[in-house]
């Protein structure tokens, strides 16, 4: 299997070069059997257009894909609401949509998408069990509150709009792409003592120096982690709260706001970085690469491992309904390449995990694998895929190993049943 994949990537690369060099020669054809679609890549120009978030749609990855594949790949980065709006209203404007999994319940039932056939995805076996019947990567991992990815992964047929039990069919609603876990970011130099629980987010010690993310669904879950850790409430399901639980949480958020606890609610990656760098905020919910960005400016910042676990997210590739024939084959090939290892290594060096992490191993030097995946101290200097020095020899990755992060998911980014009520109440929090 592994040799096979390796060879595939290589032949893809040479094919591409041939194509580039002799684009003008008529009748040039190259065969491809990737993805179970024996496709002839003839002279006609096939371009796979993807729309997703900036974390996974960027010039470097686009260039890698264009190098490796015999057709063109065009990636477009967009904001979450725009990905969703385009997917639902103009699904023909792209060939692959990459929304966060939390939007699946709003996007899949619209019928604007078609299911993937897992039997035509050669790398599907390598996709971690999180997206299959077990709903977790390791048997002893946590399942997590909220919408576990496996619950919205399967559907009953190629044109169905429903969700069925994970693993019960060969049809999947989305092909999972990446995942990671978020936690609190802290300024250890200013706080000066160990932080090990989400409850510190609401500790009066940090009044006026704490921040939350301003997106209602996610901000409320972070707050819920803190309230539960503080022993104030035991949620039935933090990722799908009842109205009473939402009321309790929002009322507490308003109390804290009135006492001047929240310095700010941030809404962009850069804001969260600047808040930490300037020292305006010393503890806040944060994304892993934002912590890295703070450190790159020479400011000490920790992506803090907490005993209650992580809040996790995942992205998935959705196939718009209009795709057919060669284009559909090309998209299957693209996704197969995506999960065959090189792209995974690229993402691993940014601190993300592709869902076929075992394939990544072949493309990461052992020392880097040990640092990123096993949580071992670095034996070489660690560079980002963009060439920036990230960690020196001896450093240990925050949050430790892959298993320590993704094996301890307390809650999944989710859209709750009471989504509309939550937004209304969140607006009250903003207005209070």
């Amino acid at each position, binding site marked *: 299997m592994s040799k096979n994949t390796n060879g595939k990537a290589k032949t893809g690369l040479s094919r591409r070069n041939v194509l580039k060099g002799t684009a003008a020669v008529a009748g040039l054809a190259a065969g491809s059997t990737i993805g179970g679609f024996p496709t002839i890549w003839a002279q006609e120009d096939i371009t796979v257009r993807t729309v997703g978030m900036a974390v996974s749609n960027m010039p470097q990855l686009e260039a890698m894909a264009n190098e490796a594949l015999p057709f063109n790949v065009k990636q477009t980065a967009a904001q*979450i*609401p725009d990905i*969703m*709006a385009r997917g639902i209203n103009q699904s023909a404007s792209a060939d692959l949509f990459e929304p966060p999994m939390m*939007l699946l*319940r*709003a996007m899949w*039932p*619209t019928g604007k998408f078609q299911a993937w056939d897992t039997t035509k995805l050669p790398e599907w076996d390598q996709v971690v069990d999180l997206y299959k019947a077990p709903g977790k990567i390791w048997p002893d991992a946590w399942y997590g509150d909220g919408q576990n990815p496996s619950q919205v992964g399967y559907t009953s047929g190629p044109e169905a709009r429903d969700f069925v039990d994970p693993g019960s069919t060969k049809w999947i609603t989305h092909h999972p792409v990446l995942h990671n876990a978020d936690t609190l970011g802290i300024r250890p130099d200013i706080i000066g003592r160990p932080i090990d629980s989400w409850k510190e987010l609401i500790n009066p010690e940090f009044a*006026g120096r704490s*921040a939350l993310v*301003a*997106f*209602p*669904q996610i901000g409320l879950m972070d707050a819920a982690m803190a309230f539960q850790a503080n022993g104030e409430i035991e949620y039935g399901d933090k990722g799908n709260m009842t109205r009473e639980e939402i009321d309790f949480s929002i009322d507490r958020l308003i109390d804290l*706001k009135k006492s*001047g606890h*929240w*310095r*700010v*609610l*941030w*809404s962009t990656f850069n*804001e969260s970085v*600047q808040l930490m760098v*300037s*020292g*305006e905020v010393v503890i806040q919910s944060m994304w892993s690469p934002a912590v890295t960005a703070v450190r790159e400016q020479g400011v000490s910042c920790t992506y803090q491992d907490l005993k209650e676990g992580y809040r996790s997210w995942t992205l998935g590739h959705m196939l718009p309904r209009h795709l057919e024939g060669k284009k559909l084959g090309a998209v299957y090939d693209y996704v197969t390449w995506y999960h065959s290892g090189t792209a995974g290594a690229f993402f691993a060096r940014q601190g993300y995990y592709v869902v076929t992490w075992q394939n990544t191993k072949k493309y990461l030097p052992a020392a880097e694998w040990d640092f990123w995946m096993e949580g071992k101290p670095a034996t070489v200097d660690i560079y980002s895929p963009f060439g920036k020095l990230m960690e020196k020899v001896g450093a240990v990755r925050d949050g430790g190993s892959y298993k320590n992060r993704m094996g301890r998911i307390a809650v999944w980014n989710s*859209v709750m*049943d*009471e*989504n*509309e009520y939550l*937004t*209304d109440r*969140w*607006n*009250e929090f*903003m*207005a*209070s």
Partner: protein
Amino acid sequence: MAGLTAIFNRYSTLFQISPLVITLTLFLVGPVIVIIILSLWKFDGFMTLEGVWTFRNYEKIFTRSLTVTNYLQTGKMLLITLVVTFVLGFTLAYFLVFDLVKLRTKMLLFLLCVVPFWTSAVIRTVAWMPFLGTEGIINQAVVGIGLSDEPLKFLLFSEFAVLLSYIQIFTLFMMAPLFNVMARINKDLIEAARDNGASSIQILWNIILPLCKPGIAIGTIFVIALVASDFTTIRILSGSQVGTVAASMANQIYNVQYPPAAATAMILLLAVLLLVGGIMRLVDVRRQL
């Protein structure tokens, strides 16, 4: 041929206004109709149910106390912004028109007022942060000269910061129309008043101010539209801690709750139209255009 000319003459006005009519229909009336339709569709918490009609989105607006809170907050910020931008805009326009003699100096200084608009709105907003932050220039000065022991937290991520940015950016929108109407005031009028013994205050109150009414009206309409629709400045400079109508709507849109957001938009549009309509009744804007 003659018949064609006759037809053309008869409908010439229609021909002349048709580009504007078509543009407005396509890009203003059309989208508003779409938003009205959207606001009447059902939202089930996850999806917009196309073609399932309901008044629920509007019902919710009129039965929640949040609506009152949001409109009061929007109104309060609008009023403060209007008063301050008027005082500043009027003073600046007066200075440019009446105190300066050379036309070139006038135009040069007027153009200088436009300099902040050479950068994007987000940068203009974000640029306040190094000034107003806890470790910012103002706080360093305040603590440095002993005015306060603690850095002033209200400067940033507060209503104050938002208002400051509104005033900085919207003053020009108030000043420009005022400059325009003031420049058209016949200087002989002022001479005559002075000859008849009017004091400067009397000239200002009885001559200049009344003649500036159309400019005030247009400036006010600009500021109303800008404040009512802003959510970016709120997001960045209040740190999402001030709730206005537009900010609430932005949250609904972020959570892809389009029908409730569309209803909020329609009611806000109606409120703004009422305000603008009221102003148009009070002042004959066209007279001075």
